[in-house]
């Protein structure tokens, strides 16, 4: 298989991390909440999963069950972070940016503490074969793709379907656009905000689990997870708040992010070590470009939800 196809498949697999992260963030933002805690939540999702695997890894349970419990722990941990965020911003109406940043600082720190105590041999080696079904054992690039990768795509597509084709999605978008209107027609605004934020956080947390245990499968993987959290938030803008667009967006991001290491394999491009960080900048440059283009075109559908970042309180009319 040629190098570019390998590169593409690897970008897809790598991009699934962002796919989870930004699908989760889009759901939250559609409810009008800018959750800057996503990096922390992804870290906690990863840490929660690892913790569970460490606890039950040697218990002799079937690998399928071990993985499932790991995923559940990851969802639970990140969902809990989402619950803290929603309690702070929906019920207490705290500033969303400050709350999000605090959660990120908290989540990243706590993850580092947890991960430093983990025994990698237990949680990485055990059920590894399971993740890569149906491509387990293949020697080519396809071995990167597995259950969790396909799940990311399903989640992204399903989120889009729910958001744009169902009544629940209509209500959720109304809450993010104009909560007062939604309230006036009898939609429970706070319930939608809570559910969207918690479900979104759980999805994002799964991204952290996927990256550490499935894609990288290495003890040190957690060190770069925070950066991918930020990339996921940037990807929301790239995807123009449409979950299915994150599939393309995350592949492009994965491609751009890892091209610094691939590009050295190509003879006719000379890359020095100093250029690597510059190449790693590319995803952010692309995000800025998308922002500029979508602002210049100024199409209403491509703008963030109108009440993004604003707390809603019925009596403030």
């Amino acid at each position, binding site marked *: 298989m040629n190098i570019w196809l390998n590169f593409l498949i690897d970008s897809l697999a790598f991009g699934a991390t962002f796919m989870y992260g930004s699908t989760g963030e889009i759901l939250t933002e559609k409810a009008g909440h800018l959750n800057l805690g996503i990096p922390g939540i992804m870290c906690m999702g990863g840490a929660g999963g690892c913790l569970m695997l460490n606890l039950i890894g040697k218990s002799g349970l079937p690998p399928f069950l071990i993985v499932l419990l790991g995923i559940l722990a990851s969802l639970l941990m990140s969902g809990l972070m989402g619950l803290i965020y929603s309690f702070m911003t929906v019920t207490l109406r705290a500033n969303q940016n400050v709350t999000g940043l605090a959660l990120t600082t908290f989540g990243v720190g706590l993850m580092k503490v947890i991960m430093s105590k983990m025994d990698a041999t237990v949680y990485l080696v055990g059920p590894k074969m399971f993740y890569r079904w149906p491509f387990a054992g293949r020697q080519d690039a396809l071995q990167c793709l597995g259950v969790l990768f396909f799940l990311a795509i399903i989640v992204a597509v399903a989120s889009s379907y729910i958001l744009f084709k169902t*009544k629940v999605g*209509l209500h959720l978008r*109304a809450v993010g656009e104009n909560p007062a209107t939604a309230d*006036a027609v*009898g939609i429970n605004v706070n319930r939608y905000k809570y559910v969207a934020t918690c479900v979104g956080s759980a999805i994002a947390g799964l991204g952290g689990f996927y990256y550490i245990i499935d894609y990288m499968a290495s003890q040190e993987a957690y060190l770069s997870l925070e950066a991918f959290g930020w990339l996921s938030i940037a990807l929301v803008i790239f995807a123009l708040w449409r979950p299915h667009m994150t599939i393309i967006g995350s592949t492009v991001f994965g491609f751009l992010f890892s091209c610094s290491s691939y590009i050295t394999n190509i003879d006719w491009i000379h890359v020095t070590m100093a250029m690597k960080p510059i190449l790693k900048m590319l995803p952010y440059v692309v995000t800025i470009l998308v922002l500029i283009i979508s602002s210049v075109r100024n199409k*209403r559908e491509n703008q963030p939800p109108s009440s993004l970042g604003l707390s809603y309180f019925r009596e403030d009319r």
Partner: protein
Amino acid sequence: MEKALALQMRGITKRFGSVVANDHVDLDVYRGEILAILGENGCGKTTLMNMISGIYFPDEGQIFVDGQEVVIRSPKDAFRHRIGMIHQHFKLVDLFTAGENIVLGVKEEGRYNLKSVNAAVTKLAEKYGFHLDPQKKIYDMSVSEKQTVEILKVLYRGADILILDEPTAVLTPQEISRLFDVLRRMKADGKSIIIITHKLNEVLEVSDRVAILRKGEHIATVNTSETNEAQLTEMMVGKKVDLEIDRTMPVNAAPRLMVKNLNLDDNEGLHVLKDISFTAYGGEILGIAGIAGSGQRELLESIAGLQPVKSGEIIFLNPKKDKPVTFFHKSMKRVKELGAQGAFHDGKMQPVSFDGMSTSAVRKWVESGDVLFKEDEIINLRDKTPLEIRGLGVRLSFVPEDRLGMGLVGSMGITDNMMLRSYRKGPAMFLDRKKPRALADEIIEELQVNTPGTNTPVRRLSGGNVQKVLVGREIAFTPKVLMAAYPVRGLDINSSYTIYNLLNKQKESGVAVIFVGEDLDVLLALCDRILVINSGAVTGVVDARTATKEEIGLLMTRTERKEDA
């Protein structure tokens, strides 16, 4: 009348703090009729309707729908009793299509299918004679289309009792006739329609009965066919109440501010001000009366330089005749220009010419105080920013209606708020705090502002004290024109009188005071002349000493639509 009762209200009372918004109101609405609710601003029309539609909950009283007593605590409850309200400010999601907005929040059996919703909406629209494309996005719509969506939203939920809060305020005459056709069709369909308005001609045109509210009380309900404009106005404004405000006759009134043919459009191209012309004299109080939102705010803001006008002149006559020329406006160029135009004399009525003089010689001459103005200085304020206006030496003060939004900074103390007017004075870089603090102390002392100190954030003060600080600051600037928009709104009696006295003092010292008010009794007792505006146009100027409330009420409410004339 053989019609069935749809809605009954008995003894409905609503209080906000010590203010009684509705006082034991009884009202009946029948099936298949259009009931107009008529009243001045703040008479409790909207509050009353909000209680039927579930926005507010009444403190006392009962509501019956079809003879059954009901409790309405939320808009949801109102919908359950088939009551729907179309608010003045539309509640729509801009990004959604009309169909999506209409179906929002409706609990229906079966799968969500926007196509069938759109089909149902189109059918409903056709039934009542609306024209609406359910797939059009709200942000692409005109105001009238948005209103159509709101009405359909209520109809789609199966409402039988529709409440429309000032539905015609934002529409053009053609759109109004179309809306009325629709309303008549709904009436024929057996629906009850309540329309809140203060336009008499519309009441007479469309309604079957009229309920008149005044100061929260239900005055009467009459059959439209048995009444006329004069009777309705009388019931609406009530008997004159005498206020004890000392009003002196204007002394040496001289023109100070002349507005000529002022036109202003809003962002959506609607005409907010139409050909407004008037003159304000120094030494008198000119009142401006009108229904809320008739263009009062825009008028004052365009004079103050906050709104760019479309056409017209705003002339300020600076009382400079025989007064020495100063460098107040710091512009040697302007002094020289005016000198070349022959605007100055040297005290012996000899024209002054700066021809061939050096700049320093001109400066010396001017600073000696021997160069005098021949006539009052004429300054056109149009298309100038507030800063430019001040730079020209125009002493214009503006007390805006939004005290803590436009007038003062709520989180700053009195001293800092004084500095908003003076921070440009003095040497650069550092602020002079001493004078503003002295001024703050003076205002607290003289106007008896009740505050813990000059550094207490003004938003913590009561409404009356905030207004005293704001008016005090503007008066300290020794204005030649003082404009005040609703300066006593929300103030108690004592604070109101303090403000009236301040305005009267300004008038006696020769200031041209422009007072925008809503209480006709106050306008009649305080002002010398009253300018009445209606939908952005001047409908009359009356002498406040001889005019009656009915006269002004009619000027405020009567609109002659072009097609009627």
